[in-house]
């Protein structure tokens, strides 16, 4: 099917975008990569009267290290993130996740901010943002505000963004020494939406100056396990993470984390996969990612 009619505007500055959003409110829809929006419009599930194309707004794209945070412009394409040396160095979780996003032609066009704003329960960036403790930066005519990822994702395609607001950039904490990152997902075919997916962050060994004194300490801390495709939003598996805290990453602790998962997640069934199957898959996936990380680490 084809999109319904709409008016199209191509603002050349952030100020113009914010003016347009203030003027049109929820009648307006921002288009960045359009890789989710255009299909939605073609299927007539969305019919905005004004499309605000932000692709020509300067300053919205690019990746930059700012102190202890990596700043990712909302208009940065998935493909840029996949091959960015800054991302590989300072946000290895994002570098690992990027190849799982759809296909090359989609990654060339789709944007980081667009994916975060769309908040599809099965998409990779929201889960990475939650796992890393990202901060989402919004701008509007009323000013700017910053929302932690924990408070940002509210439901299926629902976020804390107000109709007059635009995501300008997202900050993720820059990777520090001793941090481990893992990512994997299960899908029917490569590039399909994940049935279940998992982003992992953990510190191994002591932190800061204690590192020298406790060189042989291989215990885990700051464990965050961000599952997606299992609920209306990405979720942190708190009990499973707690089962790993303070323990070395080995077969025993991994099994403890898998057992604890039942208290964390009650996956929703979807059209293709039952809740029971998803529950099983979350356990398998957690085991896979943690075992891969333990291999990485000892190597």
């Amino acid at each position, binding site marked *: *099917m*084809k*999109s*319904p*009619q*709409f*008016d*199209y505007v*191509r603002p050349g500055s952030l100020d113009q975008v914010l003016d347009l959003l203030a003027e049109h409110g929820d009648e307006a829809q921002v*288009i960045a990569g*359009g*890789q989710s929006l*255009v*299909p939605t419009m*073609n*299927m007539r599930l969305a019919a905005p*009267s004004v*499309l605000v*194309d932000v*692709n020509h707004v300067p300053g919205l794209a690019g990746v930059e290290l700012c102190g202890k945070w990596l700043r990712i412009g909302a208009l940065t394409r998935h*493909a840029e993130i996949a091959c960015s040396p800054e991302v590989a160095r300072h946000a290895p979780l994002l570098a690992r996740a990027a190849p799982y996003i*759809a*296909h*090359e*032609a*989609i990654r*060339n*066009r789709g944007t980081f901010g667009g994916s975060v704003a769309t908040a599809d329960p099965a998409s990779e960036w929201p889960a990475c943002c939650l796992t890393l403790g990202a901060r989402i930066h919004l701008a509007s005519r009323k000013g700017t505000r910053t929302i932690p990822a924990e408070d940002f994702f509210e439901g299926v395609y629902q976020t804390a963004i107000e109709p007059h607001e635009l995501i300008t950039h997202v900050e993720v904490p820059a990777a520090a020494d001793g941090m481990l990152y893992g990512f994997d997902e299960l899908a029917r*075919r*490569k*590039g399909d939406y994940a049935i279940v997916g998992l982003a992992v962050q953990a510190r191994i060994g002591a932190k800061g100056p204690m590192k020298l004194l406790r060189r042989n300490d291989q215990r885990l801390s700051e464990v965050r396990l961000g599952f997606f495709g299992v609920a209306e939003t990405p979720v942190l598996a708190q009990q499973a993470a707690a089962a790993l805290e303070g323990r070395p990453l080995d077969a025993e602790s991994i099994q403890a984390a898998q057992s604890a998962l039942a208290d964390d997640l009650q996956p929703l069934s979807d059209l293709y996969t039952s809740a029971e199957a998803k529950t099983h898959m979350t356990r398998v996936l957690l085991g896979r990612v943690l075992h891969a990380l333990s291999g990485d680490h000892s190597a």
Partner: protein
Amino acid sequence: MSDINYELNLTVNGERGSFRVSPRLSLADFLREELHLTGTHVGCEQGACGACTVRYNGDQVRACLMYAVQAEGAEVETIEGITESGELAALQEAFHRNNALQCGFCTPGMLIAAADLLKHNPSPDRDQIRAGISGNYCRCTGYHSIVDAVAETCSGGTKEATQ
């Protein structure tokens, strides 16, 4: 809201042109209906099948997931232009030799995706080839002969090297 015609200036296959378009017209429909470049096929219109793959400022994109009006100032290359440049000749011959098409509907998109893969990775293994064309559906061949054709192209056209 209206069907006001919006101005569009872009370069398609090396030729600059100025047009007036409705904003709801997809880039794929613009190429087919305004420019009669019907090698860009329209399948699913939701980004799943890859039949409408074109190059946009040098990168492969879905022409069904962009509005033509967004392509202001852009350089678009379609299967017609890329074929004419000779860039695809080896791939096209390998597709022919390996029966890597039956109905041909997916072939333009498949060739552009394969060429893009070989640009970034001149000697992919079979798994990498499968990943590279994973965004393009073929409903005839079962993909095996397409993977053969791409593998044969990067091994310099020698059949035994792909076995």
